């Protein structure tokens, strides 16, 4: 039984370059600096290749339902782990605000605090970041802004409360 699971995990690991390669091709073709949609599209190719490789190498007729489920869980969880890990790592390079500041210092050799204020994240300058987030949260129906003041929708209150509760429970700093 374990042989199929080992094969499922190892196949997921050795096919993992499909994910960044697919992402690179899609980003270059579409010329859009996005992570989620092209990564998910590349993940679909990854899963399809993995399933074709794994189920081609075993006699699926001889597998019980439990053995098939265990193989699927082993392989798909490995793929999920690698895909989310990849998206987290690449997000810093694509739109990380801290990475944007580091890059700006690196490319300019030396940088003052005021110059660092011009660092970009997702094409947004630091001094525009708050307005940008208001626009995004309004689009997600979390926040209402009448041009003067901000209020929260029920969804926004739930998200804000969740953030405050988790931060209090885990003794975290204010963050953001």
């Amino acid at each position, binding site marked *: 039984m374990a042989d199929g699971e080992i094969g499922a995990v190892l196949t997921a690991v050795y096919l993992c370059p499909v994910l960044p390669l697919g992402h690179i091709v899609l980003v270059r073709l579409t010329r859009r600096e996005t992570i989620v949609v092209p990564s998910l599209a590349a993940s679909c190719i990854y899963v399809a290749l993995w399933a074709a490789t794994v189920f081609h190498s075993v006699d699926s007729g001889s597998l019980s339902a439990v053995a098939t489920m*265990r193989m699927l869980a082993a392989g798909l969880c490995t793929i999920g782990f690698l895909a989310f890990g990849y998206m987290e790592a690449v997000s810093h390079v694509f739109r990380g605000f801290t990475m944007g500041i580091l890059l*700006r210092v690196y490319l300019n050799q030396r940088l003052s605090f005021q110059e660092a204020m011009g660092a970009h994240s997702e094409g947004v300058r630091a001094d525009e970041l708050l307005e940008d987030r*208001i626009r995004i949260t309004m689009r997600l129906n979390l926040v209402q802004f009448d041009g003067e003041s901000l209020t929260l929708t029920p969804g926004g209150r739930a998200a*804000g409360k969740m953030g405050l509760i988790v*931060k209090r429970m885990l003794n975290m700093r204010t963050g953001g």
Partner: protein
Amino acid sequence: MAEPLLAAGSALVVFFILHFAVWRLEWARDRSVVLIAVLSVLSYLLVVAVMDADISSHIWVSCPLFSLSMMLYLQFYMGIDRSVSIRMMGEVLRAPGGELSLSELEALYSQEYMVKSRLDLLVDRNYLVEDNGVYSCMPKGRYLAGAAVLTRRIYGLRIAE
């Protein structure tokens, strides 16, 4: 299928107990990602050592299942910790009457704070060095930034100065 679920589930419970206890300590606050990874490995190893089952009967399922759960939790944790939107909604929620003007929000969560806190973090982790208010890269920072530039070139992304 019960053994892998039991192992991964127990490891998650042990992780959250350790996570909650360790995060009470002041020094743990700034080492979040590395510490979460270390606690995850410790939790899993502890459960596997204690469980009355042959490790080979579940490890190829329980380990990926637990790893995926931890990766999802890490995404959630980082979102809560770093998200500007979550911080903003928290500030509005705490405001009297649940209402905040843009200038009040900027006073509570200034642009200077956003940049300064990140610059301080980069200096604290030895990526940057500050000299009379001017920042420059340390070797570690040059290596990471160089890798990021190379990655952006591979993806065909704009590299703006």
